[in-house]
Each structure stands twice: as C-alpha cells, then as structure tokens.
C-alpha cells in the first residue's frame, strides 16, 4: 500500500495469541480492517473483547502474532522497536483514559516532548499554541498534579496534536472524567480532529460517544462482529 493510498491503516488477517498457564490464548483472531484518511472510527465492545489490543496493534505499540498491519504505507511488522517508535512520533497521536502525562514535566514540557523527540526547533512555540488551542494558555507552567482531570486530558490532547499526526488513537478518553467534563473533552477532541483533518480511532464502551463517529466497529471475543457506517 503506498502512502498516497486512501487508507491510512490496514489490518490484514491479524491475530494475537498469548501464552497462559492453560496454554495458548487467542485474544484477537483474523481481523481485517481498513480505515480511510480523515475518517473517524469507534471500536466498541465489552471489557475483554480485545478492543484495546486491537488499538495497540494498529498504533504499532505491539506486533501481531499473525497477519500484518500497514500504517501510512509502512508495514509495521517489518520494523523493529525503534522503527515503530519513529512512525509513532511522525504519524500517530495518543489520548489515554488515564491521561499518561509525565508527572515531572509541566503542561508545556509535556506538550513539547513529542516535538523535541522529532527534533523540532520550535517545540516551545508550537506547544504553547497547542495549549492555547485547548484553552490552557494560563496554565502552561503547571505540573499534572496541579491540574484537574479535565485539564490533564486537555494537555494530553494538546500533546497528541503537537506533531500534526495523521491518525489519533484514543483509548476511553473520557473514562476517568465526570459527564460534564467528558462532554467538553469530546467536543474539543472532535473539533481539533476536524480542524487538523486527522483520522480518529476511538476505543470506547460508550455508545453515545461512538455514535459521534463516522463508522462503528463492534467487537466480541476478539473478533469484529459488526462494521457499521
């Protein structure tokens, strides 16, 4: 698949098995999935259905035991850890349920981190702009433990968009937030996604959130049982 292809991610017959005391355990089986550029996709399912595992594989955080994942024209299976790191830095943004900010860095430093990793010379300016985009320009020098849950997630969103990713992976982004804050975060995420033309892959068990996406994939027992536009 070439980088100019209309699909940003393709999963071809991917499977994931892990060994357990009872023998080999299949977490994902024979998943085929293509996600178009600028598309928003929700992966829904109950706990243990394999949705987070699928997100990990699509984002290059893990490798499948069978099949292959193609991200922005690159076959992830062919890359080593550092190769996948580079792809993540260049093309992928993340937003997690537990925010995953580095506790020792300020909001500004957290946002600038992926830019610094990419070697950007304007990391500070861009990070400030991103934080302004999420409405946190007054709190850029605060550490994560000085920010509320909603504010921490906004920093995480600013960080996710810092490098202008082609695709954003969000894992239960509102799972740790109250309803009102969650709504504001969702609005912000979709707004930024639209403005940046980013593809969004959203893992959630919240149907209301999923219904905001262009497309919904429902998973059960490690398999996609429904793919709805």
């Amino acid at each position, binding site marked *: 698949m070439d980088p100019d292809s209309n699909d940003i991610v393709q999963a071809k017959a991917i499977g994931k098995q892990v060994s357990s005391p009872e023998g080999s355990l299949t977490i994902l089986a024979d998943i085929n999935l293509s996600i178009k550029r600028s598309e928003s996709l929700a992966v829904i399912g109950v706990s243990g259905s394999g949705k987070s595992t699928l997100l990990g594989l699509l984002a290059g955080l893990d490798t499948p035991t069978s099949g292959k994942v193609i991200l922005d024209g690159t076959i992830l299976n062919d890359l080593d850890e550092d190769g996948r790191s580079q792809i993540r830095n260049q093309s992928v943004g993340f937003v997690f349920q537990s925010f*995953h900010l580095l506790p020792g860095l300020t909001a500004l*430093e957290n946002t600038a981190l992926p830019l*610094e990793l990419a070697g950007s010379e304007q990391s500070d300016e861009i990070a400030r702009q991103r934080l302004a985009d999420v409405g946190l320009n007054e709190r850029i020098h605060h550490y994560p433990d000085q920010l509320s849950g909603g504010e921490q997630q906004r920093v995480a969103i600013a960080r996710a968009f810092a490098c202008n990713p082609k695709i954003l992976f969000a*894992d239960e982004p509102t799972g740790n937030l109250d309803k009102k804050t969650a709504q504001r975060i969702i609005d912000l995420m979709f707004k930024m996604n639209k403005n940046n033309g980013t593809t969004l892959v959203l893992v959630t068990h919240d149907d209301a959130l999923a219904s905001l996406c262009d497309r919904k994939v429902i998973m059960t027992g490690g398999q996609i049982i429904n793919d709805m536009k």
Partner: protein
Amino acid sequence: MNTFKFAFSGLKRDWYSGELRLIGISILIAVACLSSINFFTDRVKRGTQQQATELLAADLVLISSKKIQSKYIDAGEAAALIISLNESFRSVVVKNDKLELAEVKAVDSSYPIRGYLRTSDNLFGEEQVNDSIPSRGSAWIDSRLLQALQVEIGESINLGASELIVEKILTYEPDRGGDLFNIAPRLMMNRADLDETKLVLPGSRIQYRLLLGGKSEKIDAYREQVNIEDDDHLRVQGIKDARPEIKSALERAEQFLGLAALVSIALAGLAIAMSAKRFAIRHYDNCAIMRCLGLQQGQITQIYFFQLMLLGLICSFIGCLLGFFAQEVLNQMLIGMTQQPLPAPSWRPVLSGLFTGLITVLAFALPQLVRLRKISPLRVLRKDLSPVPLNNYAIYALAIIALALLSPWQSGNINLTLYTVAGLFLTAIVLALSAKMMIKLLKQLQPRLKMAARYGLANVTRRSNQSIMQITAIGIGVTVILLLTLVRTDLLEGWQNRLPDDAPNYFLINIQPKQVSGIKAQLSASLDTDIELHPMIRGRLIKVNDNVINPNDYKDPRANRLATREFNLSYSDKMQRDNRLVAGKWWHLDDSSKNYFSVEEGIAETLGISMGDQLTYSIAGQDIVGEVINLRWVEWDSFNVNFFVVSNTAALDSYPSTFISSLFIPDAKRAMLTNLVKQYPSITIFDIDAILTQVRAIMNQVIRTIEFVFIFTVLTGIAVLFAALQSTHDERTHESALMSALGASHKQIVSGLIAEFMFLGVITGILSAIAASLIEMALAEYVFKMDIIINPLIWLIAPLICCLIIVLTGLFGTRKVLTSSPILVLRKT
C-alpha cells in the same frame, strides 16, 4: 532531541522528587570516605618522603672520594639551592693514654639542610634539638666515643695536630645511616678547624659530600643541568625510602584504611543498586509514555547514562569536598602526634575520588536503569507489562568487576582484596541461607503471638524473599560495623600489644662471652627481669646445596645485597617468643650430632632457600655446613633482637662471637647504664627510644584515623538500611492505608511496624554476630597473624544495636507510610 538537556532537567526533577537522593547520598558518603583516606594517606606519604629527605640531611647529596668540583657548587649556587659541604674520614682520637678510631665529620654552618642534630649534656641524659654545629675549637662526640675514651664534657681530646674541647654528646644526626653495629663512633667538628688537624693530606681517604636543598623541581633541574650521573667519581643519593620499620607500620595503616574504604564502597554499591532498582520500577510508566511518543531505545539508555554520569560527577565532587574537610579535621585531631606538620593536601585524591564515584554508580545503578530501554510502549494500555528481569549473575559479575577494579588501588594488597571481596560474597550467601532458615523457624511461633507481634512477624514471613534480602543487606552492613567496632578493637589491641609499653628501648652490643654472666646478673638484678643475651657470629653464605653463591645470579637488588654481605648468625636451643614456625620443626635440645639451620621465611624466599637445603657459611675462614630444617616468621617490628638465620648450639658455639641484647630500661633506671659502661667499658649501648616513639606515634595515628573512617562506614550501612526500607515503601503504604480503612488505630499500626523491625533486628543481629566472629578469626589467622580472643559482648550488643538501628531507621524511613492519607493512597492504586 537533545538527550543531554533532557537528562539534565530529568536529573533535577528526580532529585527534587527525592527519587535519586539515596543514590546520590550513597555516592557522596562512599567518595567522602575514600577521598578523606586518600587525602590523608597522600599527605602522610609525602610527609614520610620529607622524613626520608631528613635521613639524607638534604634533598640531594653528591659523594666523592675527591674534592667536589667547583662546577657542582657553582651550579647549585646559581640555581639558588641551599649548599652545605662536609668531609668525613676515619682517624684516631686520643685522650691521655686512650686511643680510639672514630668517624670524623667536619661540617659547615648550613649542615644539616634537612632535619636537626640532637645532643645531650650528660651520658644518657635529656636530648636537645640543636640548630647549630660544633663551635670553633670544639667537638661533639657520641656516647660510644665518650665511653671508650672515658672523657667528660669540657675536657679536651686530640685529633691529628689539633686539640678540641668536648662540647656536647651527639645523640642523633639525621644522615648517620649505615649499619648501626659496624661503624666507628662519631666525632663531629667545625669544618673551619679541619686544616689545623693537618689530617687532610694528599692520599688521605676522605669522603667529600656536597649537600643540596631546594624544591624538587629545582633539584631535578639541577641534576639534569650538571649531568652528575655521568661523573664516575660521584655517587648520588636522592630521596629514598624511609626506615623499613616505619614503612611497614605505614603500609599496614594503609591496608586497614583501604579495607575500610573498600567496604564503604561495597556497602554504598549495595544501597545504590537497591535504590536504582526502585527508581527503575517507578520509571516504567514514564518510559512507556516516552516510548509511545516516539523515544527510541538508545535514547532511553543515553538519557539514564547521562543522568547517572552527572549525578555521579556532582555527588563525587561534593564527596571529595567533604573528604577534604574530613581529612582536615583528622589532621587537626592529630596535631602534635606527627613530629612535623604534614605537607598540604594535593589534588590527586580528587581524581581517584571522581573515578571511584563514577565506577561505583555505573556498575551498581546502570544495569538496573538499562532495563528501562526494554519497556514495552504497550504498557500505556496494559500496566502488567514489565521489562524482563535482570540476569542476577550479570549484576553480580559487574559488581565484582567494579570492586576488583577499585580494590587493589584502595588496599594496595591483592590478598587483602581477595579476602575482602570473597568474604563479602560468602557472607551474603551464608546470611541469606541462614535468614531463610530462621524465618521458617519463626513462622511456627506466629499463631502463639499477640496481635502486634503476630502482624509484625506475618510481614516478615509473608514477604520472606524481601525479608531475606533486607536481612542480608543490613546484615552485611552490621557485620562490617561489628568488625570495625568490636573486632577492630580486638585486632588493634592485638596489633598494639605487639609493641607494648615495655618494648625494648636500648640495644647492648659488643658483649664479650666472658662478660655474659656478669652483665646478665647485674641487669637482671637491677631491672628485676630475665635478660636474654644472644650470641652473634658473622659469616658469609657461600653455598646453597652445591651451588656456589654468586651475587650476580640474583637480579632482585635486595637478594643481590643479601648475597654480598655478611650475615649476623646466632645459635639457640629454643625459638624466640616472637617467632613462629611456618614449616618444619625446631630441633631437639639434645640433638648435637648435626648442624641445623632455621631461616626466616622472607629471606628464604628472596635467596631461594627451601626446607632441606644444605647451607654452607664461611665463618672466620672456616666452612660450616648445615641443613635447613625449619622456616620461621619473625615479627620484625617488635624491636627484639632477631636473626635471619639461627643454628643449633652445637653448630656454632665454638666460633668467635660477641653477644647482643635488647632491653627495656625505664627512665628512672637510666643511671644504671653509666655504671654498667664504667664496669664493662668495651660494651656499647644504643638508645632506640626515638625510633620507638616515632613508631608508636604512627600506630596511634592509625587507630585514630580508622576510628574516624569508620563513621563513614556506619553511614553507608544506614544508607543500605534506607534503601532496603524504600524497596517495600509503596507496599507498606498501601497496607497501612488498608488497615487504617479497616479500623486499625495509629498505635496498632506503629506497634506492628515496630514488631516487624524488631524481628528483623534480632535475626540480623544474631547472624551478623556469627559472621563477624568468623571473619575476625579468619583475618587474625591469615592476614594479621595474631592471636585474639573474641569479645563475648558481641552476642549481646549485636542484636541490641541491630534492633535499635533497624527500629529507629525503620520508623524514620516509613514515617510517610504512617502520615499518608488512607483515602489518597487507596485512590491511587
């Protein structure tokens, strides 16, 4: 990305958050300990070198049998060096009808350039330090010449054509040197009187000396400039080693201190490794996030490598500063003990301190942190993903390599190093196994205990692996602390006892066989103790088995010298008390059928003599052959008379001999020596009090130094304790919060913790006492070669101290456990 910048800001953050503090403090203590020792020993060494220059009376001496050429003097003057000329020769000194051959030395007013002359106004009277030389027309003579000529102070003696008044008794001249027993007595005179003696004539055997003094760079430049090495008539003496007995005491001191430093480094290493492990675990999440954001594995390694290097450098530097101040305190404590102020500290120990700090932190902490590169980015989604645990063998190997790399440098003694490193690992293994057994046994007690004790013991047994690790770590620390307190006292007392207050302070020589019984009776009566007189026969070793001794066969300069010179042989039916057989047996009293030799092990090794060898000595023109049937270890620093080679009585008693004795004469009884000399004018008496005082002062210094250094070792031991507590801190915090939530009172939680720490303390104390006693016995037997009695107090003190240290440190280390809000703690997990 600028990994160095990132590492630096990370270092600041982690330091402020307290995560790196214990690693940093451990480096700091270890380096402070090491550098204080290095600063101090460096100063003492250079001080000794100064003493060595004192033994030359100058920094450089040119000796010639011809008059010293003026070019050498002119060059010295041009280089602004201090210059002194003297002549020495043998000549007969006359007083009435008495003639005595004396070593005459004519000195000028600059003599001695280094050191001082010491004199007294009465025979064996109080010594005074002089900064002058004999005045014109007078002479200073030593006690032997005074005794031989039976002359008094103020009387005149004749030397050549001149008459000199005896002004003082010369008791010490720095550059006397030579073999104490084989030189003629000394007469020192003013050089300006030399011509009047008319003894300096063409063909006279005169030794001319040019003494030069100045800074070492100037001396080196002078040597280069005048090309003295090319002049065949000149012999040059530079700074040489200090007296062997002082050197030996200093070497032992360095070994003790090196051992203390090495143990501090090993303990600091342990604390560093434990803290680094916790640091790494707490950084799993951060690394996973950074990996997720695109940080590469190599960059993670770089970041932590830079952080450690920076931390190592900063803390080592501060450690060196602390070490510098610590050695200054030590120096202030010891003022008055050294005969002269020590030279200023040099910068060399800073380099060794920085090197040691870096090696220690890299060897002990880096393996833990390198693991972070293996963190899976997937950990952001799955918390249970941790990097593969480190291979323990690799960690141990690295630690051993680091210690091995640092240790010969610290102790200067490879055997001592091997014993220490092997001992530490053996101790760790034995402690771990014993702790496992004791915990199993204690588990049986658990149901019978009350709540707090049961909870405490449950914590110990439930986390048995962690408990074993804590007991082992703290146990090693406490074992070393015990070794350095109780055992150190035993060992040092044993060592000091070798040189008791009544160590000999006088040597009597030239005692004729017929005078033996009279002198022995007189001395025994006056001093109320048995006096031993040893026969002394001079002989040259000419053959070992059938091999004729040729000095050129010995490449080792010491062996060459020994093979060239005459030995002082002795005979005896029984071995001296301060000797110990290392091979073979002593001969039977009644076995006079054969000739037997007993050889000191050191000289046997140097000259390649083994058990069963036939040695041939040439004594007064006759050859005597005997078999080596034993080898002895001799305690040379006891100051008793000792011989390299001793035979059975039958072998040597028919040869011409004189007798020698060493004895302790208290100040109050010194007057008896004057009577003895009057009664037996041919005997000669030497006062060795000065050397003894110096050796004793060095030993006292060493003990004080070790006591001081030991403070650092205790501190590193406490750092290990903290590191061990830190490793269970999070778990403890969670448990306490849970118990508090379930209704446990603060008092109940504290009681449980105290009970747990007490159990750990008692187990650690008992095991450490056993380990320390065993190590002490091994050290005494194999390293220090002395007999010691293990202090029984160790069995009481060790568990008590361990309980106290562990409970107090434990409560301090877990104070946050008790003060954390249960709801906050439980929410986090």
